[in-house]
């Protein structure tokens, strides 16, 4: 393989294009491509250098992710890494960024430890982390004296999410009455739900990702009728289609195309519809776009210099405009501070799924997570 042309900047994008998270991977890739075009006004050039990107499928397997990342770094000589759809894959790739001294923009993997205990200076994250989710979730429902029960998958994603949520909710004065963790592969969630009901809380906060979700069983068990309000994150459009049992629920959203109100988002929605026969951007399309924008903006500032140290210096504290409004890479742990949205799920005519309707935007300071890489 030849070393990279001086006037080309190469970006390697890692994403799950097959496997359980493939929908997320595809969103990221589409968003990334749109982001490049947006940030360079369609020229795909910055400071006179051409930008190309190479996508690789991690198959949502850690060993494949490492193999693909190494290929990108060694054979394609990429200047940046972007990705990936799964926290496991991302964690496995992090040390490579440091070893090869290349910037890696993490998107959309959410595990706190990426910018926490496994942080290295080459890592920047445009995606929100679990703590930001938790803070947003708490902001949506917690206040002095509210009794909250939690339900989550019994795995790291669920446990960490709840831990961060409890910290945030208790800070707001709420009382956590029970924490319930369910086997994510279970056929039957009613016993877990039963446990929640037995505590008679005001709110039930749920951290859940993945296909096998308890929404329907929550309705079957008449949770809301028994006076328990449900709150959770709404995810991509496909899963919204499965959440009709939760209409009326108050929670939060990371991105839904109607929620942000800014020019970048308007461009994204319009351009996305144009390119992908009328479809609207989805959960992580905005993230993919943000990652691309952050890279191009940094390059603009360094005038095409891809030296990592220079880039780190530039990117720390950098603010940039994304479909989710302005984001800022916090200098301490390189986590992008960003807005999340408190919403209520409502039905809308002509839409085959419940949609999140904005209650209020939680700005990037409100959702600022604790610093955990020290």
């Amino acid at each position: 393989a030849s070393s990279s042309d001086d006037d080309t900047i190469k970006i390697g994008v890692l994403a799950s294009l097959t496997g359980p998270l493939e929908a997320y991977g595809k969103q990221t890739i589409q968003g990334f491509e749109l982001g490049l075009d947006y940030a360079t006004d369609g020229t795909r050039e910055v400071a006179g250098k051409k930008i190309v990107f190479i996508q690789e499928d991690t198959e949502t397997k850690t060993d494949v992710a490492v193999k693909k990342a190494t290929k990108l770094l060694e054979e394609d000589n990429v200047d940046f890494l972007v990705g990936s759809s799964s926290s496991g894959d991302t964690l496995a790739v992090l040390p490579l960024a440091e070893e090869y001294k290349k910037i890696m923009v993490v998107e959309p993997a959410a595990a706190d430890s990426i910018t926490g205990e496994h942080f290295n200076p080459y890592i920047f994250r445009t995606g929100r982390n679990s703590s930001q989710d938790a803070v947003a979730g708490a902001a949506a429902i917690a206040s002095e004296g509210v009794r909250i029960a939690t339900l989550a998958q019994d795995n790291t994603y669920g446990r960490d999410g709840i831990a961060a949520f409890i910290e945030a909710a208790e800070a707001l004065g709420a009382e956590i009455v029970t924490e319930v963790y369910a086997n994510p592969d279970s056929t039957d969630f009613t016993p877990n739900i039963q446990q929640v009901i037995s505590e008679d809380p005001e709110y039930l906060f749920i951290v859940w990702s993945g296909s096998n979700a308890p929404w329907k069983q929550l309705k079957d068990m008449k949770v809301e009728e028994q006076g328990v309000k449900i709150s959770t994150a709404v995810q991509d459009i496909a899963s919204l289609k499965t959440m009709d049992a939760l209409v009326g629920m108050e929670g939060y959203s990371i991105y839904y195309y109607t929620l942000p109100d800014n020019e970048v988002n308007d461009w994204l929605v319009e351009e996305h519809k144009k390119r992908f026969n009328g479809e609207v951007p989805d959960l992580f399309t905005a993230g993919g776009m943000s990652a691309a924008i952050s890279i191009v903006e940094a390059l603009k500032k360094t005038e095409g210099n891809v030296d990592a140290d220079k880039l780190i210096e530039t990117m720390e504290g950098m603010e940039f405009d994304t479909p989710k409004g302005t984001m800022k890479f916090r200098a301490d742990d390189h986590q992008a501070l960003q807005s999340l949205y408190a919403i209520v799920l409502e039905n809308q005519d002509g839409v085959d799924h419940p949609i999140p309707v904005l209650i209020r935007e939680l700005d990037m300071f409100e959702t600022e997570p604790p610093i955990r890489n020290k």
Partner: protein
Amino acid sequence: MNAIINLFVNGLSTGVLIFLLASGLTLIFGLMSVLNFAHGSFFVWGAFVGLWLYDLTNHFFVALIGAVLVGMLIGWLVERILIQPVYGNHIRQLLVTLGGMLVLIECIRIFWGSNPLRANMPDWLEGSFQFGGVILIKYRLFILVVGFLIYLLLWIILKKTTIGIMIRAGVDNREAVQALGINIKTVFSFVFLFGAGMAALGGFLLAPYSGIIFADMGMQYAILAFIVVIIGGLGSIPGAAIASIIVGLAGAFTAFYIPDLSLSINMLLLIFILLLKPTGILGEKGRA
């Protein structure tokens, strides 16, 4: 007390659902001794086809029959193409059907995409009855009834016809069965196809149970089905039924009382029962 009743009813009906999922496998694996890894993809096909038909026709029973028929068709193809060359060789069965599973699941993704879909169901099955704190989910009561009917059907087929005997004899010695003028190839094909149809039915009924279906759900339920067939005792329909109910109830009660165990409860049950009774609950010695 209410909680206990809820747990019991829900656990029981989950057990019955597991039995429905495993019923096809009691034939294919328990009786015919075919290690069919693609079994989970029969569920998935049943679920997707059924749901698709239901959304199209709005007739629950049309969808049900359609799902079963498609399951049988796929079963027939799988048996013809994949299984016939490898009867009697478990390892090759496993791998060939592993390949089959990859193909079948990818086909699902091609036809229906890779996102999870919401499973709809008719209004008369929607919702729950409430008696004070006791909540009886209608659909689960329906599952209890269907499960009982399927059990009866299997029981009648195996007790009142010689099909069961033919299969067991065929597994013991294929050649000698043929010498009795029985076309064992056809019998096996038929039973396999029937088992696949049952699996598709199980998948179809599973869909509204959890409310969501997705291409990857096959594997996890297939493992569950294998577990109950094994701990029930190979080839024993009542064994599989008992094992299913044990698994369902144990799942419900541990999730409530000892949540820390719920990730491992199925495997603990498997280990515990096999160590206690190495051939499964109703398994006979000497059949493996």
